[in-house]
């Protein structure tokens, strides 16, 4: 790790100030609130201990995590080959697909959920596996852009052709060359998709599924402090998981330092 020296930069200070005010202050306040013990007075871990003892806590957090995991797999499986193709073909559909990928941002989730309920056949609506596919659509604008930036930053055509003329078929070109070269983008896509899926509430509730976020709101009705404790943990646990993933995927030098 390079030694970093911090200098004072006004634009950076302003960014940190705004970020601090709107993100860190509410988070710290929520944390402070969650460790209050109103009956005994003062602070303690009672609410966290209560939350962990709730037998449904583990069930719902695991359920949300595997749904998020499947969403990540669907996202990579669909988007990496598609975007590679779009970039290589240089086709006019690129602008169209770029635009389409933004649609989930402008369509209200409520409309989306109702539409899904009306149009999807029963066998789809009867399985919780409909959620990862819908989460994929919700995460599409972010995942698409993260991968798009990565693919734009590399000489995709040349290294793809080099891989193919060296004997790699398309699958191996994508898995052994393209994904490792845009590793940073792929990690960002995984993080964004995972976080978005894990926290998705509106769509899940409208389609009558129970996941971790919907369970937390249910719990909040009887124990608001416990619900906040649960939410704090739900922030920290995925954060730890993502940190571990990032640390354990072997670091390889991909950036040209001139």
């Amino acid at each position, binding site marked *: 790790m390079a030694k970093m020296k911090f200098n004072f930069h006004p634009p950076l200070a302003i960014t940190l100030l705004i970020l601090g005010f709107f993100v860190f202050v509410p988070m710290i306040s929520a944390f402070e609130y969650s460790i209050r013990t109103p009956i005994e007075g003062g602070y303690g871990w009672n609410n966290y201990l209560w939350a962990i003892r709730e037998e449904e806590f583990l069930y719902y957090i695991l359920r949300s995590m595997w749904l998020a995991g499947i969403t990540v797999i669907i996202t990579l499986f669909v988007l990496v080959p598609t975007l590679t193709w779009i970039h290589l073909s240089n086709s006019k559909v690129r602008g169209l697909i770029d635009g389409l990928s933004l649609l989930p941002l402008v369509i209200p989730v409520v409309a989306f959920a109702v539409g899904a309920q009306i149009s999807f056949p029963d066998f789809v609506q009867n399985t919780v596996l409909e959620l990862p596919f819908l989460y994929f659509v919700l995460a599409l604008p972010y995942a698409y852009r993260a991968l798009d930036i990565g693919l734009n930053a*590399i*000489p995709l055509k*040349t*290294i793809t*052709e*080099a*891989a*193919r*003329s*060296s*004997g*790699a*078929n398309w699958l*191996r070109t994508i898995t*052994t*060359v393209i994904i*490792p*070269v845009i*590793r940073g983008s792929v990690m960002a896509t995984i993080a964004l998709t995972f976080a978005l899926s894990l926290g998705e509430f509106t769509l899940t509730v409208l389609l009558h599924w129970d996941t971790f976020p919907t369970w937390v709101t249910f719990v909040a009705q009887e124990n608001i402090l416990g619900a906040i404790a649960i939410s704090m943990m739900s922030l920290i646990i995925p954060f730890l998981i993502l940190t571990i993933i990032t640390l354990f995927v072997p670091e*390889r*030098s*991909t*950036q*040209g*330092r*001139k």
Partner: protein
Amino acid sequence: MSSKSLTLSGISKRFGNVTALDNFNLEVGVGELVALLGPSGCGKTTALRVVAGLEHQDKGTVLVADKNISDVPAHKRNMGMVFQAYSLFPNLTVEENVAFGLQMRKVNKTVRLKKAHELLDMVGLDSQSKRFTHQLSGGQQQRVALARALAFEPEILLLDEPLSALDAQVRVNLREEIRRLQLSLGTTTLFVTHDQEEAMSISDRVGVMNEGVLEQIDTPDALYNKPASAFVAGFVGTMNRIPAQIADGMVEIFGSKVVALKRGNESGHVLALIRPESISVVANSAAPNAKVLTRSFMGASSNIVCQTTDGTIIQSLMTSASTGDLHPGSSVQLHVLSSEVLVANA
């Protein structure tokens, strides 16, 4: 030796309205190095990419030895390719890059790394094997790319302007290294370039292309001395274009009559194509027909640029010893040294 011969017959390829290759034919013998030379957009790169399987021809067949590979996908063609742009995999070390082709062929790690080191040793980069590619200079990167293309013992080596992104000195060194490796491994090689010096200096034969058609393919000497068309004559080496009139199969140049060599149906007013070394400049003549504009001293030889009385600019290449008394502004007499000249339609 795994090297094979290459035959392209009747290859046509269009991109929209542009005809890149028009009934293109080419044969490259086992172990031969053939260069395709031509201006940009002449179809030379398309021809190479069709051989590699990176483009699919609209018509025609590609044969390696006697096997038709026209519809074989690129990754099954067993052809090593070096690209113009740096094409190394940035996530792999130098040795992993070179071993990549063997890895794709499921060769075990010990064997493929051994082979990679052999090749890196051949291009003089074995000491850099653990480094990442961005830590290498441009010339070193192209050497690694060459090693990578040769490591899996390809049937054909394809070079797509591999030197054009490099500095002049590195370019000369690397082209000689390519030739040395190619000769020692005996790999059949197709080399695409727009640089005639590059093509002429290392190739067994050079094919000059224009507008999707092979104008002439021959040894560098033959191309230079016996160009088959005015285009080839103009593209390979420097050529003076002197207006003249054909009469009875002869043209009059600087007052002397020489035989006109026609490649088509040239007649009447034509351009005589004459190499600079076939024109001599004589000072202190009784009947001057030109003035010296510049004299560039280049060591053993000097380049004299003159202007004739009718305004034509003429270049002459002479030994420096014989040009001592030629100065800008001197009145001189030009002579044609050859007894026959190629003519083209004006």
